[in-house]
């Protein structure tokens, strides 16, 4: 029997505009790999990560993915945060028949036989969130996003969902991923004039803190007009300060505050490994459980060959920190829990709503 390690690619930015959140995904990945290896590896062979830093640059994502699959002899890559980087890597993994595990919520409307999607599709977060906002705050939404694929596509869906609920988009602005603090301050003036019921944010990366801070500086009140988001997690709240984030709303499959036994264990080992003041978040959690799903499937087939591994992955189930999850064989996406949370004074999320079971992914929103 071979004792050669299972070599896997890990592709998350450690530098550049989205490094803050991608580094947490890197940590989630590493934690899972270390756990698996500590328990004896997969069929007595350890998993060895080959890690590159694409520097938040989509072209480097594509080049490094190609290097991993073509030169380094790897078949499996855990990686990508932004949709732009995933779109850049997609043709590479399809051409080389690799398997990309993508642990980030995204805008849906995609299917690749070479990608396993473990983050939420719009029907698993946006639908619930829009329902809640319209019921509790009103139908007038003001959309602020970073300027790339995900915010524009996600907002197209939000607009559609709003229309079905007789709601209205009363403002829509996109700022560069590297936008400055002052640009958000300027935007708050328009918000004051329009006075929407809710600000809907798809701002990602460092700029997230600027948005929420500009909101706080403008003296707005989250009880009256909250910022709602699909991407503002514990990591971003830590960056902006709990006092700034308090009262705002996020829809996600996972919050650190979820009370499950497997989440308790996960949070404890994450803090033990990376420090007591490091919160977990939805992206860490997906990055973490997807490695375990991979290991489970790998143990069964004992080969990294994508053609053999993938059919097994497509039926895998796992007790993730968010609850029991399973990969949907139809769509390559994951059955995930739908939750809404509100930031409290500790920078954690108080649960507002949660689904009674994992929600089936519907990436093309066929049923909406």
């Amino acid at each position: 029997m071979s004792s050669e390690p299972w070599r896997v690619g890990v592709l998350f930015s450690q530098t550049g505009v989205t490094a803050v959140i991608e580094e947490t995904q890197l940590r989630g990945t590493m934690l899972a790999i270390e756990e698996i290896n500590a328990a004896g590896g997969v069929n007595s062979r350890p998993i060895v990560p080959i890690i590159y830093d694409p520097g938040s640059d989509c072209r480097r994502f594509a080049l490094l993915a190609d290097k991993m699959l073509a030169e380094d002899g790897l078949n499996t890559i855990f990686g990508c945060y932004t949709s732009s980087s995933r779109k850049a890597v997609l043709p590479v993994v399809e051409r080389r028949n690799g398997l990309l595990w993508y642990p980030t919520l995204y805008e849906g409307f995609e299917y690749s036989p070479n990608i396993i999607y473990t983050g939420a599709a719009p029907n698993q977060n946006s639908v619930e969130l829009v329902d809640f906002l319209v019921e509790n705050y009103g139908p007038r939404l003001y959309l602020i996003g970073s300027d790339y694929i995900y915010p524009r596509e996600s907002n197209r869906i939000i607009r559609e969902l709003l229309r079905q609920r007789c709601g209205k988009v009363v403002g829509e602005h996109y700022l560069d991923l590297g936008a400055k603090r002052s640009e958000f301050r300027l935007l708050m003036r328009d918000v004051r004039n329009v006075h929407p019921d809710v600000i809907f944010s798809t701002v990602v990366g460092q700029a997230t803190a600027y948005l929420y801070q500009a909101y706080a500086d403008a003296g707005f009140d989250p009880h009256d007009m909250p910022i709602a988001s699909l991407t503002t997690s514990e990591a971003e709240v830590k960056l902006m300060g709990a006092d700034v984030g308090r009262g705002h709303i996020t829809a996600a499959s996972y919050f650190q505050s979820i009370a499950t036994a497997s989440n308790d264990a996960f949070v404890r080992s994450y803090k033990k490994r990376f420090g007591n003041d490091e919160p977990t978040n939805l992206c860490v959690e997906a990055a973490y459980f997807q490695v375990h799903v991979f290991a489970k499937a790998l143990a069964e087939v004992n080969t990294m060959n994508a053609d053999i591994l993938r059919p097994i992955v497509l039926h895998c189930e796992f007790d993730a920190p968010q609850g029991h999850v399973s990969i949907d064989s139809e769509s390559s996406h994951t059955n995930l829990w739908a939750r809404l949370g509100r930031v409290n004074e500790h920078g954690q999320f108080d649960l507002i709503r949660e689904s009674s079971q994992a929600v089936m992914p519907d990436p093309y929103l066929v049923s909406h």
Partner: protein
Amino acid sequence: MKSTTSCIDLRNFDCAVVHPRDRDGELLIRCVQRMGGRVVNQWPPGQILDQPINVLFCVVEPAALTLLRLATTQADLAVIGILDTANSGIHLLKITTPHALLVRPLEAHAIPGQILLALHNARFQARQQSKITKLEDTLRSYRKVEQAKAILMSRRNMGEPEAYGYLREQAMRRRVSIGALATAIVDTSEMLSEEQVEGARE
């Protein structure tokens, strides 16, 4: 480390060589056998292959045209054309588009590379094809869900979100895909309205 030769391990591969058993034919058959492949020889070309295979080596000549064209429409079959420098078979390449090409007189060292290319290209095409099929299915179920929604809205006096909700719920309860449920609703509804028309005629 995975070496490149393991990529052209032809054990578990059934290969057909559609070529006369002359010097080139013998060389090719021996080469494929050395890589572990099971080989059948077929000559003259005929219209179809006698048995299911994974890799086809076939002369690019008018007599083999039907066979070649059939082969290139079969998903996951790697087709390697064999072209004669002396004849004008090159215009036939346009029609048959094999996954890789060998040129006569054959040279043993040129064969593995072409097999590698052909296998890669055929598999990539098959994967892309399966992706397209899946996306087309999604597109179809989109249309069906829209139709089913319209039926529910008019027959049951439902609003749009309500109709969608009903479809989702029923699909979940019956453990079928939403597309399958919508198709059932549309088909039943069509059948019922046909019966109504026939009833009115009677």
